[in-house]
């Protein structure tokens, strides 16, 4: 029983180690990155031989985690919310096969889009796959849920989804840890072929099994100590608060709740509590971080006759992160603001670091593309997305990991010239390589810039899967080596860079340009470390 000051992410990592984890599989993504980093830096994890190397993307991560679970060991798979889109194929089907060793999938959602391109609520994925789901309201709960979650997963025979949000991931609090368990021994399932070969005939049986398990999952939710009903004598309305929304509710009632409150942190929904609330209260207010997931479900299974309030009827804002003030307003509480933000305060958007190689890449690219009035630049996900902002204003799109390459291809198919893709080295190996093969197979007229800073920079400088091998990867995929051009993005090389860019735009086929210079952040860190 030791107390530590942990980020939510760190609490999850420590809990997994303490629960006998054998491997974590992940691709970096804010706000989930610190889970895997914590395990990578843990001496205990090293002693125990816990696998913790970064995976190439979320799909490879989840499949590897499932493989470890198949072999009987406990596996953790972490990602940001949009990462689950990449891993969704494995995710949906792991719910069909079920697991052997305990398997926990962490989805770190980012409502308000602090560092993301959307704010999808992955509890919907949990419902979609019909697996049990946990949503902690405190760092301590995050620890306890993951610590116990592997057992839950093994007992039920299914993967467990733990959904956190930015505020949980990146907020620190005191966490009491528990005794460390030993790891599972390797033990492949005896009935493995009946479960893990999802041929239609077997899959149909598995789906019936999954459907039958729903009642068991609901019963587990109803017995869960994380779902709590706080009764009060006053029954004008009932309040359901899920995950971290429970904290904002509590903040507004420092002396105890005024109305009955159901705290939900384990799904599927604990029906018996909800029925009690619906029977006793005239109206139900639903507080949840993200989409109106519970609110919509309530409308479905309670039917008419009771008013449901929440994000759908405007009681709470439909988008964005909850705050204690937003919840207070929904409860009819008054907010006291004494000072306004003075008009003199300006926005301060993030920017590419001074000395960053992406800057030089964009400078040279912009100068060349000024010569082509119809040029379109398809961007991607990473630091270089900041090239969208002044002074560069260099990209036209940013949709999802790897989309630069394939959108450039599609636009080129439609007649756009020059069709340029800008992608980072880590994003390229994450999801750009398959798109490049499409380009090669049709000899598409695209110019692909892999802006290589030899790291996964936006998330803080994690290893990049293709470092040192980008040229051979591209050549292996079939790009003509004469059109794989490496350059060093520095001011003094602008003339040379511009000549190369111009030549490759004019080449009618697939070109790959690789401006390569180490990330200024990782370089500075290395220099500091070598001084010590």
């Amino acid at each position, binding site marked *: 029983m030791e107390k530590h*000051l942990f980020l939510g992410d760190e609490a999850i990592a420590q809990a997994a180690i303490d629960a006998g984890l054998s491997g974590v599989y992940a691709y970096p993504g804010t706000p989930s990155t610190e889970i895997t980093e914590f395990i990578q830096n843990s001496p205990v994890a090293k002693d125990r031989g816990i696998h913790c190397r970064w995976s190439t993307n979320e799909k490879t991560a989840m499949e590897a985690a499932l493989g470890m679970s198949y072999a009987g060991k406990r596996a953790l798979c972490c990602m940001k919310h949009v990462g689950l889109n990449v891993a969704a194929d494995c995710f949906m089907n792991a719910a069909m096969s079920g697991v052997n060793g305990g398997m926990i999938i962490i989805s770190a959602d980012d409502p308000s889009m602090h560092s993301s391109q959307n704010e999808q609520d992955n509890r919907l994925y949990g419902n979609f796959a019909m697996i049990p789901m946990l949503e902690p309201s405190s760092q301590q709960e995050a620890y306890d849920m993951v610590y116990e979650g592997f057992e839950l997963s093994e007992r039920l025979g299914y993967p467990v989804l733990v959904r956190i949000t930015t505020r949980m991931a*990146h907020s620190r609090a005191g966490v009491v840890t528990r005794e460390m368990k030993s790891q599972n021994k390797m033990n492949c399932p005896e009935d493995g072929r009946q479960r893990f070969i999802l041929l239609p005939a077997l899959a149909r049986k598995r789906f019936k099994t999954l459907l039958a398990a729903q009642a068991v999952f609901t019963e587990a939710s109803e017995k869960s100590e994380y779902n709590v009903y706080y009764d009060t004598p006053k029954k004008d309305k009932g309040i359901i608060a899920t995950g971290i929304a429970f904290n*904002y509710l509590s903040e507004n009632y*420092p002396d105890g709740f005024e109305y009955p409150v159901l705290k939900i942190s384990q799904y599927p929904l604990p029906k018996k509590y909800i029925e009690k609330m619906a029977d006793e209260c005239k109206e139900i207010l639903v507080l949840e971080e993200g989409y109106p997931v519970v609110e919509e479900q309530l409308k479905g299974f309670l039917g008419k006759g009771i008013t449901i309030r929440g994000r759908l009827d405007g009681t709470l804002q439909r988008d964005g992160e909850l705050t204690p003030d937003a919840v207070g307003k929904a409860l009819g509480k008054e907010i006291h603001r004494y*000072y306004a933000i003075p008009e*003199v305060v300006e*926005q*301060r958007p993030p920017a590419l670091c001074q000395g960053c190689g992406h800057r030089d890449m964009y400078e040279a690219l912009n100068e060349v593309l000024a010569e082509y009035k119809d040029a379109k630049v398809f961007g991607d996900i990473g630091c270089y997305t900041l090239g969208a902002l002044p002074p560069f204003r260099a990209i036209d799109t940013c949709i999802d990991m790897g989309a630069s390459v394939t959108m450039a291809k599609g636009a080129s198919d439609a007649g756009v010239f020059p069709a340029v893709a800008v992608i980072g080295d880590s994003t390229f190996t994450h999801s750009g390589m398959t798109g490049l093969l499409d380009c090669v197979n049709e000899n598409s007229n695209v110019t692909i810039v892999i802006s290589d800073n030899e790291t996964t920079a936006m998330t803080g400088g994690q290893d990049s899967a293709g470092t040192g091998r980008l040229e051979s990867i591209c050549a292996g995929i079939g790009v003509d080596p004469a059109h794989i051009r490496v350059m060093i993005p520095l001011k003094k090389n602008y003339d040379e860079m511009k000549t190369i860019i111009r030549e490759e735009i004019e080449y009618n086929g697939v070109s790959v340009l690789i401006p390569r210079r180490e990330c200024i952040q990782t370089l500075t860190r290395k220099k500091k470390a070598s001084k010590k």
Partner: protein
Amino acid sequence: MYTDINKKEKSKQKMKTDIILSGVGGQGILSIAAVIGEAALKDGLYMKQAEVHGMSQRGGDVQSNLRLSDQPIASDLIPQGQADLIISLEPMESLRYLPYLKKEGWLVTNSQPFINIPNYPDIEKVNVELGKLPNRVILDVEAIAKEVGSVRAANIVMLGAAAPFIGIDYNKIEDGIRHIFGRKGEEIVEMNLKALKAGYDVAQSRK
């Protein structure tokens, strides 16, 4: 645990300080939070601290909500109008969080602007706004840090200037510094303690 939140009695609460730390990504507001957190933990206090990671760290505006109390804390975020203290490494950034400040709350900020945007306002206009606040400490932390030894201790000068308003004994904050910087040797610890004291003295003279 969550059940405590509903059971806690407000009358028992003797200590509660809600702090907003602000600055520009890369200035190091989290190092200030780390020392306060260490001191709070040693003091047996409850603490919650929400940080900003990811995209904003690339030179954008950053803030951290730090809540300390002798009773369990519910929300990771501070409600508007309830912060006891804003600690800012940048003057314009300190103003961005004014809606969170209590009427009688304190604002402690570095006076030197960090200009990485083309439309940074006239600093005189920023100073006029700062001047309107009843409780404020404005100091040039880099200059003071240079006087005591190293400009790298600027964040600790800032912490010292905020120390009278945090609600934790000064010697506990000193212990926090010893703990955090202990690995780097006695010389670094002493320099940071001096920086802390220099900031503290400025705040005491203006309080």
